[in-house]
């Protein structure tokens, strides 16, 4: 009957586009990462040698500096992990606090909108904003530092190896907090007021209510926020490209950027290495997404 044909007709355009521009390229990249490339031509099977080359490169994994417990550059892979470790908890917690705090503040809606703007503006502009506030002369961060009498530390924070990465990560907290705040706000609204009232009648203090009722009830949202933040921290590109180009000396580089350099910037392109890098990256995003999904389904 009709029922068999229509779903296919409705699905066909979407499936065709996804196959051509998403799934096929994705599979191609994964396979390509195991092949030997010469320019655009495949010249043989590489096995895992692309991966060895990539993971052995100090741009991706700077084992020497890592072992000596030095600061960046530590390699793009480590930078991405640092990004997750620092930005995700900070922006998630901050978003939750702001959502709770701004609920009963006059003008809270306006403040929320402003904080959310980081999610609305292009990340390129986000990168510009960060580069701008960290600028030695024109940047407001240094103005504050001078104001509190620490003028000798004033510098272009994104231009120094020890601070470039961390200042971008802190900046990304500034950009990304709006997301978790908005989700948590929506989540808070969906908790029935009676629950808080009942808790108060039962004699719970504000902090205990927050810790024992609000936080657990927002767990599904926390999972979503964490997932999206981790994925975003893994995929970060625009901000770094605009603010530092991964510099100085690779001190703020990330995987997506390293992939870009190898495939589209350096001449001749090294597609094998680029594909290996992005396969590693995808393995992390996809693996993480599947892991969380399993967690949620259980």
């Amino acid at each position, binding site marked *: 009957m009709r029922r068999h044909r229509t779903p296919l007709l409705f699905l066909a355009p*979407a499936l065709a586009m996804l196959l051509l521009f998403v799934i096929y390229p994705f599979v191609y990249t994964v396979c390509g990462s195991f092949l030997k490339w010469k320019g655009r031509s495949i010249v043989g099977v590489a096995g895992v040698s692309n991966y060895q080359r990539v993971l052995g490169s100090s741009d991706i994994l700077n084992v020497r500096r890592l072992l000596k417990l030095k600061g960046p550059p530590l390699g793009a892979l480590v930078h991405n992990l640092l990004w997750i470790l620092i930005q995700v908890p900070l922006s998630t917690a901050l978003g939750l606090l702001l959502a709770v705090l701004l609920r009963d503040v006059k003008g809270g809606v306006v403040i929320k909108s402003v904080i959310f703007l980081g999610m609305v503006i292009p990340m390129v502009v986000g990168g*510009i904003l960060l580069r701008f506030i960290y600028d030695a002369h024109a940047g407001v961060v240094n103005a504050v530092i001078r104001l509190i009498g620490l003028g000798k530390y004033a510098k272009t924070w994104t231009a120094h190896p020890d601070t470039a990465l961390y200042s971008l990560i802190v900046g990304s907290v500034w950009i990304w907090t709006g997301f978790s705040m908005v989700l948590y706000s929506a989540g808070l609204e969906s908790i029935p007021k009676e629950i808080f009232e009942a808790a108060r009648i039962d004699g719970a203090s504000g902090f205990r209510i927050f810790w024992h009722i609000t936080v657990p009830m927002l767990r599904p949202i926390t999972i979503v926020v964490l997932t999206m933040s981790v994925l975003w921290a893994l995929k970060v590109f625009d901000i770094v490209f605009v603010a530092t180009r991964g510099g100085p000396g690779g001190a703020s580089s990330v995987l997506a950027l390293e992939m870009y350099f190898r495939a589209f910037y350096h001449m001749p392109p090294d597609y094998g290495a680029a594909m290996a890098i992005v396969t590693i990256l995808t393995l992390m995003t996809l693996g993480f997404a599947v892991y969380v999904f399993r967690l949620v389904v259980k």
Partner: protein
Amino acid sequence: MSRKRVLIHVVAWSIALIWIIPYLGVFIASVRPYSEIVDGWWNLHPFTLTLDSYSAVWNHKTYPLKRAFVNSILIAIPATIIPILVASLAAYSFARFSFPVKDMLFLTIVALMSLPQQVVIIPVFFLMSDMGLINTRLGLILLHSSFGLPWIILFLRNFFMTLPVEVEEAARIDGASDFQVYFRIVMPMSLPALASIAALQFNWVWNDFFFALILLLSPDKYVVTQTIPMFIGRYLISWDKVAAASILDMSVPLVVFALLQKWYVKGVVGGVIKG
């Protein structure tokens, strides 16, 4: 107000200040001459108001923002409409029909959302080269449309499931074919959801940098986000011009956000939380 509430307000507005100042900074920098802001836009003496930076970047010799705006719009509008049409049909299929491997297919599509842009770009670059779509708007439109499909499918499928089935059944009894049910009943009933999606997808495409960076190679094809970094010099950054260009660039998504704020937030939240 109790002291505690006063404290909360002070804290809240201080935090707000941290978020507002950078925007305020670029805005002030964009309307003052370079000489006045190079050592800090917060120095208010002297204060000259000028739109020179705007006209400079708008009519720039090599990278006129005027042209970039046209390019961005010519890409963002079709790359919003096409995926909505395509994805909504698929979403409807997932929401209303049963067919073999439906759940598997749906999960696969949802999983695609986590893919980074970088993982498809090399083969897409090859593909577009072979099809002669490098450095064309069409190429970028196709890529954005495809890449936007998974989340729109997920969002709309969830939305369609909340619509009352009886209305569609009534239409079928009244003589409508599947396509008629879809275009005459379901689509019009879904306008709020479509508004959310349109706002988000438009901004997503407008804000994209990476795909454009790879696929659009000549300055006359550049989109706005691509043009901004061009104003950052190697050693000296003309903050006045960079600021003006940034303000112009973000003004479009900001206007979309302001106009569709309610739906925008619903879109961000709705994909995630039910109801």
